[in-house]
């Protein structure tokens, strides 16, 4: 009990400090969580774990000179009760970088921890401690370059791990962009991944856009990732369509320092189609499917549909129902879901979320699992939001699993978005 009081006091102090800091220029956002988890695994006995989390992210613009900004996000955990694995806490800097934007040539420089969002290096979505430069040149040409070290190494520690990537692109007005890229990843000084790639974005009309890309693996001598996505959003009919194709060689995503990549060259393709019907301003029907084909002539796939509806004054309440099916290689899963989010008052809302799963083959003697989640969300003065939730589930691993969460969200600063 004493530790809970200490944790709550800490929460209050952090909230106070956060609020004080926010009165200055920075855009500061923070979330505090207290969870209560019956953390049972296959090895240990029942255990109640009560961790406390603090997530903070901030951005400060126009430091010293116009266009210079700093951005960071991170979290820390303190355990009110022991987790049982010997760790009493944890934390991580998610991202943190200094950015300089110059209007001339639309120049961007980012130095620090950041997420790789484009080019072959983005195949294995990861954070890198890197220097990233992007600039327009002349005649619609532009260049991007990134060099640094991955935050999470593939194997054997980070010393000598390097990610380097370059991209040359050309814009064609507001309707097309084409790029060529090269990336080189080294793990402990050895060639881990080496790719060349192309990407093409087309928007031939206001209602159609397409993305096409391919990343060729120089070491494996095949395409590691090849994809195309086309989106059609007509303005005169209430329909939206998208189609996609993706060809992947999974072994090429593995580290070349891993012995496993020499065992397989199986590739697979994913062909998908989705349609959305905007039945009214408040009702949306979404349906689609994906078909997986493997180069050894096996097939799998998934399909499903969701109906979402907004109701009540100004459509401020949401209700949704969905059914999805996975025809997997070793088994199949049928999922049904129902949720409702209801504004009780202007500042108080309640939500319920119910999931049910049916497994084609029994898992640990069960073919069915379900989960029910209930949450209350209360908007408090001065930008604070308090959320409380609880969930109950029964699945092949737990007969009755219960979790609780209390979250305090605070959002200060000038212009800020959903975080």
């Amino acid at each position, binding site marked *: 009990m004493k530790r809970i009081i200490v944790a709550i006091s800490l929460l209050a102090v952090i909230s106070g400090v956060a609020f004080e800091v926010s009165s200055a220029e920075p855009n500061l956002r923070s979330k505090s*969580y207290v969870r209560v988890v019956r953390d049972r695994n*296959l*090895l240990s006995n029942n255990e109640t774990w009560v961790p406390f989390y603090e997530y903070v*992210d901030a*951005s400060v613009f126009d430091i010293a000179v116009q266009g210079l900004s700093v951005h960071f996000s991170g*979290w820390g*955990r303190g355990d009110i009760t022991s987790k049982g694995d010997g760790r009493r806490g944890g934390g991580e800097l*998610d991202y943190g970088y200094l950015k300089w934007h110059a209007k001339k040539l639309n120049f961007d420089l980012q130095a620090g921890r950041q*997420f790789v969002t484009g080019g072959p290096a983005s195949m*294995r*979505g990861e*954070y890198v401690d890197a220097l990233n430069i992007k600039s327009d040149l002349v005649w619609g040409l532009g260049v991007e370059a990134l060099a640094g070290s991955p*935050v*999470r190494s593939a*194997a054997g520690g980070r010393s000598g791990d390097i990610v380097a990537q370059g991209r040359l692109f050309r814009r064609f007005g507001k309707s097309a*962009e084409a790029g060529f890229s090269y990336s080189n990843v080294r793990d*402990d000084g*050895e*060639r881990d991944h080496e790719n060349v790639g192309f990407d093409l974005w087309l928007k031939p009309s206001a209602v159609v856009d397409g993305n096409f890309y391919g990343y060729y693996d120089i070491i494996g001598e095949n395409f590691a990732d090849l994809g195309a*996505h086309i*989106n059609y959003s007509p303005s005169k009919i209430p329909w939206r369509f998208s189609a996609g194709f993706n060809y*992947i060689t*999974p072994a090429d*995503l*593995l580290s*070349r*320092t*891993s012995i*496993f*990549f*020499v*065992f*397989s*060259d199986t590739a*697979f393709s994913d062909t*998908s189609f989705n349609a959305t019907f905007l039945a009214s301003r408040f009702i949306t029907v979404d349906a689609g499917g994906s078909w997986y084909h493997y180069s*050894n002539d096996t097939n*799998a796939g998934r399909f499903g549909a969701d109906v*979402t509806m*907004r109701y009540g004054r100004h459509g401020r309440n949401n209700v*949704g129902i969905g059914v999805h099916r*996975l025809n997997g*290689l070793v088994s199949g*899963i049928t999922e049904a879901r129902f949720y409702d*989010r209801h504004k009780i008052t202007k500042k*108080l*809302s309640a939500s319920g*979320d119910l*999931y049910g799963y049916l*497994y084609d083959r029994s*898992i640990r003697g069960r073919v069915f*699992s*379900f989960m029910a989640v209930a*949450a209350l969300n209360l908007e408090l003065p001065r930008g604070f939001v308090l959320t409380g939730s609880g969930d109950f*589930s029964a699945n092949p691993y737990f007969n009755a699993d219960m979790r609780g*969460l209390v979250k305090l969200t605070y959002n200060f600063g000038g*212009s*800020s*978005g959903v*975080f």
Partner: protein
Amino acid sequence: MYFKRSAIIAAVIVCLCVIADAKERVKKFSHKPHVANNVSCILCHEGISEQESLVPIKIDVECSSCHESGKVKAPKGEWAPTSALVFSHKNHLERTGGDCDTCHFGISKNKLPGHKECLACHNKDYNDLKCRKCHGDLGSMNLVPLSDYSHTTNWMARHKLIASKDRAVCAQCHEESFCSNCHNIRDDMTEPQKSPEAVERRMIHRADYRTRHAIEARTNSALCLRCHDNQSCIECHRREGVTSSAANYPHPAGWMSAGSANFHGRVARQDIALCASCHENGTATNCIVCHRSGSGLNPHPPGWSTSISRSATVCKRCH
């Protein structure tokens, strides 16, 4: 006992908030009869042409000057709904020459201006996705894009391509931490655990993913590998006791029989990344134990080639 007490305290807090909120509610006001009876806008909205914000407007006029006392309850003080919109009535009235009807043409039907009316002039801002020009503080608004910007048709698969092209478009509504909520795999909590109230969002690791992940990974391991390296599989499987030495031996019967449909070689050729999710743990745990060079069990698939040097560490493990 502790949970019961906490639940009671939480229920009391919620009730107090509901009561407090209900007290703040005001009686609805209808524009319709006022417009029908040619009541001048300025009569109630005096000073609007100098107003630098959308609301509030103080109502100084006494309703009883028109209505018989006792029949109508007059709204008091700041009766209008608060809004986080960045808007200046002063600037707009200067441009319309003081004509309220330019924007408020639907007021006789109690209809306030919405996107449609604003975009009659602000179409370029809308097309350029300059949402924050009007919606200054999106974080405090419970906004869900309804049509044009709604994340429909397989958005989960498509969003990467859109975000990689122009992050500034996403930044109109989302802070960067919104991305790291899901993409930072070094986080302790998954996004469904962190945001149980965000029921309208579609998240991969929702509900009973613990049970589903084995079937999902065996069907499309590349999807897992796009975010998770195989070390994260090993760490969790070890922690949870899913190892060959435990009672939860994961392989089916016939795993070591060459003629069996469940033969491990067949599965390995199908998806080696799946094997790596447990066995990438040193030479004692992986394929080299049996498939060493000279053992007669060539691990390379037919026609396999690579430009990697044979002096590389990975080759030297066998050769």
